[in-house]
């Protein structure tokens, strides 16, 4: 039977107002129609948001009445309200955030808003058949909080940054088209606030801080004698830089663990020349004095993936997997993704295929695999996408992989591109299962790219993990600019993998090197045995990609307490006399770089090796790219407040970045310089 979607009964059903047998009849019909399911999701989500806002409206009245008579008791309290943390910190902040017109940006306050809504989310992600039970769950969670918080001490101070951002948002909004009926100066700020509320019904999380950043313990200085080998996987992710940029542009310094130095360095492309041989990439090494600690040496390893002209690349079979849950509504989320995809679609040809899978309460295909010459059709499908619903990522990802596999192009690019603002509510599937699925599919040649958008729910660590397991990359889109960079300018690199499982092992010459420290790459460290073990997975390099790693090296003879390595007792049974090492005494070489990689469809790794001699070059005379990379690294270390940041200051970072700016065709380095200035102002302020 064809369903009438404009039937008040559907609304009644969505709100749990129908009695049997009507309820079952509708439930049956709904189960058969994806459209109806989406509608129901939307209604329920809207209902949740309305309840939320109405509850807030009531809540705000409460303090005003508190003086006139006692309000309290234990009525209609949901369980988290028993949590003292919630009362002391989260609630006041939540209220402050609401009062301050905006609940978007970073900071604890926003996360606390989410916390308030967290429990609701346990009702989402049910299989479609169970959907009718949701209204009850949702209602239960939106009970009116009847207790009063008195929080004058926290409120005013927490308000300030939000007001500033609200003003900024309002300004930004002023540039958009005037199609809204609301005052332009106010609407965007409210829009954001509303959206944040609207999202309350989304995915579950057991954490307070729902923007999850894994804690990073920085690589220490290692004694070259006991650790002559340094082994790690390359990293082509860039998300951390755009995320850091978002924080700073919104007026706050990023949380330490959101700063991954290697991703910041690798955000920028460096002008390394391509391999002249048939190797998929070229290796470049430079050594100069270390600008933040002049007695040390800074070693830069640079990899450059072979460029493949856009018209030479193989055909692409792309499946976009889009999160269309309600929280994706703000302009910087789904609309941004859509915009970015439009840019990409323009570049596709009849040899390419695109499919779109959406996931929310129920997942479904929004566009079957379609060749790139049917642009109209693809663009229309994109146009029709609307945010609304709750997340069930697992089903969506399975469907996406299925479509990718069904349309597999041998020798081409086969890729699932996931765009989301949050983690997956994996429903029945655990994260482990999901990762296994992605890993397995990666082996079959379908890779995964992850595009992160949005702010507070960003599951940074999960996304990074997924992209890694899926032989893919993870980028954070904070602007259309960034989307253009990731999807269009670097389309080849993003989409065409030219070598996989790329590992680096550096062997240091004990006669030259006392100790060393790899800057960043903390999550990419491998055991020295892993280097030659082809079973151990590592990251991929895409066409035209550059990958840069920096080592801070303490030469033999240099002394600096900051770089001192905890002493280890001398070995009793093996000689550790430096002069007895095989080549060290006779060699001027500082280190040897070894690389292992596999062809994208290969199982056996190939080895590239290169010895490096330090010619005592000074930083002043170093190549511009090295200067710039050093500036970015130091900037990251300062933001992390790293104990290894040495004598560097933001002013010095600026200076090095200026010197290292070079051609800067895309203006990215100018953008960095601007960002450092903003950070300077924030630090001062």
């Amino acid at each position, binding site marked *: 039977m064809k369903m009438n979607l404009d039937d008040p009964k559907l*609304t009644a059903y969505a709100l749990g107002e129908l009695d049997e047998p009507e309820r079952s009849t509708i439930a049956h019909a709904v189960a058969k129609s994806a459209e109806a399911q989406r509608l129901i999701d939307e209604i329920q989500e809207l209902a949740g948001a309305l309840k939320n806002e109405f509850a807030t409206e009531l809540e705000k009245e409460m303090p005003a009445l508190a003086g006139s008579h006692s309000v309290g008791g234990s*009525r209609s309290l949901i369980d988290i309200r028993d949590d003292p943390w919630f009362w002391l910190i989260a609630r006041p902040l939540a209220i402050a955030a609401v009062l301050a017109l905006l609940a978007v940006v970073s900071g604890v306050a926003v996360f606390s808003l989410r916390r308030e809504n967290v429990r609701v989310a346990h009702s989402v992600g049910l299989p479609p058949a169970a959907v009718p039970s949701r209204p009850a769950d949702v209602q239960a969670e939106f009970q009116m909080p009847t207790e009063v918080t008195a929080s004058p001490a926290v409120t005013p101070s927490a308000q300030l940054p939000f007001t500033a951002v609200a003003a900024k948002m309002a300004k930004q909004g002023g540039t958009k088209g005037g199609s809204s009926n609301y005052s332009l100066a106010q609407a965007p700020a409210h829009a954001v606030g509303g959206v944040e509320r609207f999202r309350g019904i989304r995915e579950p999380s057991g954490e307070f801080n729902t923007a999850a950043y894994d804690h990073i313990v920085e690589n220490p200085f290692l004694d070259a004698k006991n650790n002559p080998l340094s082994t790690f996987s390359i990293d082509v992710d860039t998300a951390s830089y755009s995320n850091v940029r978002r924080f700073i542009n919104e007026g706050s310094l990023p949380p330490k663990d959101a700063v991954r130095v290697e991703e910041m360095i690798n955000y920028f492309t460096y002008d390394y020349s391509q391999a002249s041989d048939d190797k998929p990439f070229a290796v470049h090494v430079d050594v100069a004095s270390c600008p933040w600690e002049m007695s040390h040496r800074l070693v830069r390893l640079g990899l450059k993936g072979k460029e493949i002209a856009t018209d030479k690349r193989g055909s692409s079979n792309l499946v976009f997997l889009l999160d269309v849950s309600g929280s994706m509504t703000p302009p910087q989320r789904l609309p941004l993704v859509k915009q970015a995809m439009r840019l990409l679609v323009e570049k596709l040809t009849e040899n390419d295929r695109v499919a779109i899978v959406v996931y929310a309460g129920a997942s479904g295909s929004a566009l079957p695999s379609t060749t790139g010459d049917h642009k109209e059709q693809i663009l229309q499908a994109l146009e029709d996408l609307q945010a609304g619903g709750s997340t069930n990522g697992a089903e969506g990802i399975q469907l996406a992989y299925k479509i990718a596999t069904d349309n597999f192009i041998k020798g081409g690019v086969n890729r699932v591109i996931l765009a989301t603002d949050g983690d997956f509510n994996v429903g029945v599937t655990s994260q482990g299962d999901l990762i296994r699925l992605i890993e397995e599919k990666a082996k079959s040649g379908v890779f995964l790219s992850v595009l992160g958008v949005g702010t507070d729910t960003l599951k940074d660590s999960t996304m990074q993990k997924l992209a890694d397991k899926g032989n893919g990359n993870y980028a954070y889109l904070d602007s259309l600019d960034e989307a253009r960079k990731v999807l269009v300018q670097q389309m080849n690199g993003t989409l065409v993998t030219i070598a996989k499982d790329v590992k680096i092992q550096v062997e240091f010459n004990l006669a030259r090197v006392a100790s060393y420290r790899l800057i960043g790459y903390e999550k990419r460290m491998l055991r020295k045995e892993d280097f030659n073990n082809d079973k151990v997975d590592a990251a991929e390099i895409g066409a035209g990609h550059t990958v840069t790693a920096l080592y801070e090296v303490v030469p033999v003879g240099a002394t600096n307490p900051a770089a001192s390595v905890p002493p280890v007792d001398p070995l009793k049974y093996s000689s550790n006399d430096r002069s007895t090492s095989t080549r060290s005494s006779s060699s001027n070489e500082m280190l040897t770089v070894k690389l292992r990689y596999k062809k994208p469809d290969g199982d056996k790794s190939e080895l590239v090796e290169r010895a490096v001699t330090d010619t005592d070059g000074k930083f002043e005379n170093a190549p511009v790219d090295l200067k710039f990379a050093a500036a970015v690294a130091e900037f990251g270390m300062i933001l992390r407040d790293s104990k290894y940041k040495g004598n560097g200051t933001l002013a010095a970072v600026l200076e090095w970045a200026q010197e290292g700016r070079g051609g800067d065709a895309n203006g990215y380095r100018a953008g960095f310089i601007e960002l450092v200035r903003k950070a300077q102002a924030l630090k001062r302020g």
Partner: protein
Amino acid sequence: MRSEKIEPGQNVEEVLQRFEVPLLQYAARITGDRERARDVVQETFIKFHRNGALSREGETATWLFTVCRNGALNVCRKERRMMYLDEEVIEARESEQPMPFDQLEQQEAAGFLLRIVAALPARQQEVIQLKFQNDLSYQQIAEIMKTTANNVGVLLHTALKTLRQRYGQLAGDFIPFKPRTTE
């Protein structure tokens, strides 16, 4: 907020605590005036006190909202606020004032959705408020508004449809691409 089962024999104080703010909001939305709303709610409670606690489950809420509504509508009539006088005519028309209470406008932040709600026809606003602020059933709302559950369903359905559309519209506007500044 979940409508609570009202136990027999409960005292007025408890009912006051439980319903004061919701009623205040309800009356404020109808009258568009917080001072008047306060008077209406006070009167409502005085009446409740006189009539004594009601014994049937769920009836307290219905009773209070009905009395409160009548009081609020009386205020509108007395003060010639046309909004509710000819309900059937007005139903078809959008509320002219996007936000009826200015005071709130300055204080409130998150009320983005509420703002869109405030632009709905009056009776749709009312249904939305009773349903989502007070979690009353279609049947209860019908009783309060002196109409049928069916009509409540239609009002709510229409209102939600409009809200979804407007919400989508607003969110669909895209902040245009800003070229990167090069120095």
